[in-house]
């Protein structure tokens, strides 16, 4: 049953679903330290208690923006990739819910940015949303990061 639990959130102005097994928690970001000279989708570092995390701007990854933005008070979805914790900026976190439908193969021509991070489609409240893999958000394919 637990594998049917999804987090529904808005990333880069689009409603998406994340598998609950991929998600650690949702936090409010404070005290962001920028990291000069790194990949454009990395906003900087922030701390959650004694853990330092890297903040990711999904808008840059999907190509909706060219430079990363992040500010105190932003919501971030915390994920763990390769032993490091990352926060992905979300415009809004809507719901955590069980979805009865199956994950379906992607149909239709997605924009290149979304194609890089989406793995499947799923039905939520009568609407098709993309299932996003946070690992690909953290390490987007090179063409896009550059």
């Amino acid at each position, binding site marked *: 049953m637990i594998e049917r639990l999804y987090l529904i959130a808005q990333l880069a102005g689009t409603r998406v679903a994340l598998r609950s097994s991929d998600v650690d928690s949702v936090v409010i970001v404070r005290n962001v330290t920028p990291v*000069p*000279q790194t990949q454009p989708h990395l906003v900087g570092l922030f*701390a959650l208690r004694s853990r330092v995390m890297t903040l990711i701007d999904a808008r840059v990854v999907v190509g909706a923006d060219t430079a990363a933005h992040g500010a105190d008070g932003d919501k971030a979805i915390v994920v763990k990739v390769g032993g490091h914790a990352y926060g992905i900026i979300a415009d809004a976190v809507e719901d955590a819910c069980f979805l009865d439908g199956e994950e379906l193969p992607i149909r239709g021509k997605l924009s290149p940015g979304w194609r890089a991070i989406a793995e499947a489609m799923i039905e939520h409240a009568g609407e098709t949303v993309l299932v996003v893999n946070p690992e690909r958000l953290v390490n987007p394919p090179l063409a896009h990061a550059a």
Partner: protein
Amino acid sequence: MDEILQEFLSETAETMEEISGEIVAWEADPADRERLDSIFRFVHTVKGSCGFLDLPRIGALSHAAEDALDAARNGRRDPTPALVTAVLAVIDRILSLTEEIASSGSEPKGDDHALIDAVHADESGADTVGEVIQPGTVIAAGAGSDQTIAAAQPAAQDWRTIRVPLNLLDSMMNGVSDMVLARNEVARVLRGDGNSGAVSGAFERLSASVAEMRNSVSQMRMQRIEKLFAPLPRLIRDVSNELNKRVDVEIDGGAVELDREMIESIRDPLTHIIRNAIDHGIEAPADRLAKGKPEAGKITLVACQSGNQIIIEVHDDGAGISTDRLVAKAVAAKIVTASEARALTATEKLNLIFSPGLTTAGEVTSISGRGVGMDIVRANIERIGGLVDIENNPGNGLTVTMRVPLTLTIISGLTVCAADHVFAIPRASVSEIILQMNDSVRIDRAGGADIAIVRGERLALVYLEDVLGLDRPDAESIDRAIIITRGAGGHRYALSVADVFDHEELVIKPAAPAIMATGIYAGSTLPDNGRPMLLLDVTGIAERQDIGSLGGQDDRAAEAVAHNDDCRDQALLFNDFDGAVRAIDLAVIDRVDEVPVAAIRRQGGRLRALVGDQMIAVHDCTIPADLTAIKLLRLNDGDAEVGYAMVDVVDVVRLPASIAAPAQPGLIRGVTLIGGEPVEVIDPYWIFCSLGASRPAERQPVCRLTDGGDHWTRQFLAPLIAGAGYRVVYDEDEDAPTADIVIAGDSDDQPDDMSADDQSILRLRKAERPSGKGDRSIYRYDKDAILGALDRMTRTG
């Protein structure tokens, strides 16, 4: 799982690691009764425990090993290599069985007859063969096991310990870190509130106990480096057997303590370095004999603590690295182009070993040489904030030195700022901080490069804002600070920052891979204000700005000039241990320290002194037994530091111009008259050369200098040539060996015995630019070109 079984498993696994080293030591010296006894006790204990734990396979195996070892103890069998290998195989099987029991909870089924037969293979007489696998024997032995268990744990009980799962320890460490941050937050709130004395008093006590707790938790994570070293003799034995080489191993410094996580991070690099040493370093026995070396190679492992660093040194007495072959490989692998390769200095050539995808092995073997090499070693060590150095001694061996911080977690850092961003720099990599306004600093701009001239030393200057792609305010308008630090290959450079704030203890964690990949950052940290901070990687910055060559081009010449301006011809007079008064050039002395004799030890075949938190190689000498402290002259050539031990300082004197040359070049550069007394003058270059342990004189190429009377030739050129591994002779020398190369000035006459276009003559000119088209001479301060030319001439000549 059963608690007794659990106890047995962890105890067996632990003892097993210690014991494999013992077995190899015993093989090397079969007469060593103590080793044999401790191995015997181990298998005996295992066998005893198996009786009441119902582990028939382990019981039969340990019983067989016990029989064989008992026979060896009683002199009924010789500890042949075959026996040792068989016993090791049995111990390995026991270990793998215990691992399977740990994961599955019961002993797996299987057949160990082959191993047991091997243990008995060369045993004479059939009296014991039959009873080996009789279960009755095994169970009966269990009766006496209580005593043997007690006996098998020698002095270990004088320290009462309990076992704690590692993840519990880690979660406690994280908890304490959170607690420290919460304390800091409370402290901020209290400061803002203008609180009562009672609250702040209580908070002080809380604060102190949190600090104490953090300290003890860090100590809980410390382990002796022995744990890392114990399995190595076994590894060395197995690898060398496989390659049909003979290697002895010497280990020193097992008592040094290191953070648990550090030990895990060093394990793989260390194993790799040792495999490399055996596979590529140590020659086959026949080759070694042909070279006049002992048949068995030797690997020396030394660990010591120096301040907040641990130094681990792996030394082998094998063939060393052939830099020519290394360069050829690098060119073949397209890591450098042939023309780039020619411009490299000797150190840069050696550093090619750290390039990804490069191996010096002629062919790929099962041990190493798959192209996964020293680059991984260096990456792993640098990831934990350490450094790897290589000291190559072609023909005589290689020393790989790893320096790692004491704990993964806490370093002492300096906070700096650039365009409103705050960063940390490890204190250990900062050698000096100067304000840009200071009179001793001048900043020049030449050909687009910024250069800082600090007290005569010319350093590449890097603005931190430029590195980070941030806006830099007009450099002249504000008072900036210059941090002098060391980049790749040990070249010093100057890093200009907007301001230097503070000095604090920082808890460093690795940052996300994408951030580390920039090469600018070495990790991240969370200071007390709760705002994450990045740690700068000063070596990476130097590489990224590509200033290695600029910073290092004429370091030595520039420094020599700078020193000479201040104290030309001044010398320090001192009493040496043999009662003689000797003199040494004052310009090369950094400082004089008093050092207790106990701090000077012979390690890894040479004398080393522990001064403050530094290890300094000391020129070989015999310290009289009645002294408790000596004075140590610390000599610096701009790159490296060495020590010369003596009794005490007499005076500082002016060195007369006339110094009578000694019969042979050596420690004594010459004899001169000071105050009417003849005084021997020490040659500091010789000290640096000898501590670099160059080739024995008879196998060095001979280099003849035509003008031995010239001051420059004697004081500058001769030491350079000798330091590069050539034997220096002068025209004036009688019965000097035939020279391989002749070095002459550009205006000197043609040597009588040579024709004008002879390939083995190298001409040095005083002018920086060549005089015309046909001028093949080399500018005499172009050290790299001179050494490069010598190198080529030795090979073609």
